[in-house]
């Protein structure tokens, strides 16, 4: 039973660490606890921790907890863990295989570092054209976001707090935007900035936060909402600081939204 609980929490941990909503983590953990000796199961999941208690037929309870320190979005891991849990709940695999598979999923790298950097920049290129920007603007945006995207991925790899990494990303985008602005003042900056920001701002985090609140988990919803706000604040401080410096040294305004 202990092993099953451990595996269930491992599955929940991977889900929570990779951007799942708390109600889904709760569901996954409960779904894995299929042993017939369990007469009662209770799972509490908040944004950064999980506590699961099972009550056995002989009256003994077992409680395990896990804390999560760092979260990101990895959709593939969510999908793989769900499949493993489904297989176990339907008796297609045993507990040892579950643990092996979960360890493997946890250590999987879906895409290479450089591919993620390139795709972030290509994303801004496509969104610039999609939101009505010009081809010159899209190419400029692609070039502008390569270095910030590289640093964002690098900071994440090196466990730099996301608030600091967002300040630096915002500052880098502003520096390169100002250089491009000085080289070609005719570029459509509103559309370009919109496409760069959509990738960096925590829109997904904000939607997940509201979904948690709608599902009745106010603590996680509020903490995720704060996380989203802090993330956006970091980005704006980075952009605002560079703009303020630029205006201080050159005078006038750069642009207004």
């Amino acid at each position, binding site marked *: 039973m202990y092993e099953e609980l451990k595996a269930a929490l491992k599955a929940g941990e991977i889900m929570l660490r990779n*951007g*799942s*909503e708390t109600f*889904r983590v709760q569901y996954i953990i409960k779904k894995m606890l299929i042993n017939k000796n369990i007469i009662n199961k209770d799972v509490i999941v908040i944004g950064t921790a999980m506590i699961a208690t099972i009550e056995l037929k002989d009256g003994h309870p077992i409680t395990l907890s896990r804390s999560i320190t760092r979260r990101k*979005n*990895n*959709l*593939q*891991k*969510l*999908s*793989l863990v*769900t*499949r493993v849990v*489904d297989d176990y709940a339907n008796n297609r695999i045993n507990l040892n295989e579950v643990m092996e598979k979960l360890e493997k999923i946890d250590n999987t790298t*879906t*895409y290479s570092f450089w*591919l*993620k950097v390139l*795709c*972030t920049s*290509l*994303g*801004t*290129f*496509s*969104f610039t*054209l*999609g*939101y*009505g920007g010009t081809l010159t603007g899209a190419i400029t945006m692609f070039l502008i976001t390569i270095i910030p995207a590289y640093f964002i991925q690098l900071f994440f790899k090196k466990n730099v707090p996301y608030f600091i990494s967002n300040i630096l990303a915002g500052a880098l985008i502003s520096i390169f935007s100002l250089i491009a602005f000085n080289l070609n003042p005719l570029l459509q900056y509103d559309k370009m*900035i*919109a*496409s760069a*920001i*959509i*990738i*960096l*701002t*925590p*829109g*997904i985090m*904000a*939607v*997940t936060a*509201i*979904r948690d609140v*709608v599902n009745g988990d106010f603590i996680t919803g509020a903490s995720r909402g704060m996380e*989203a*706000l802090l993330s*956006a*604040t970091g*980005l*704006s*401080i980075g*952009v*605002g600081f560079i703009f303020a410096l630029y205006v201080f040294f050159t005078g006038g305004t750069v642009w207004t*939204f």
Partner: protein
Amino acid sequence: MDILKIIMIGLGTGFVSIALEASKEDLPINALLGSICFATYLYVFQISNNNMLATFLASFLISFLAIYLTRKRGKPLQIYLIAGIIPLLPGLNIFKMVFGFVNQDNTAIFENANLTIQILAIIVLSIVFASSITKLLKRLQFNIKKPES
């Protein structure tokens, strides 16, 4: 021209899905969902000139498609839903709001905070509506007895 925009948004959604580490087999679906979402938004916005209605209907349609794909492919809803709604997310408004804090521009803060909350609430409402309607339909389907032949 709109077709090009829709294709580019689809491609952008596909690229962002790679940054979000979606699995390779889901990338074309995610790109298609992004395109459908933006096409719906553009179409509804062009005929109604109402941003909120366009956002609601686009994310409502995407929620239904995501629920269908989730059932069909046995994956969590989040995988298709997140990718599908990327083009609708008010990232720029969140940024403008906090940029207003930095610039001490109260009008920008309130205007964008209001818009951000409205858009996010509408996206979430549409997701809740779509999942409630699906659950209701499923329940009704089980309750309707087949006529005896």
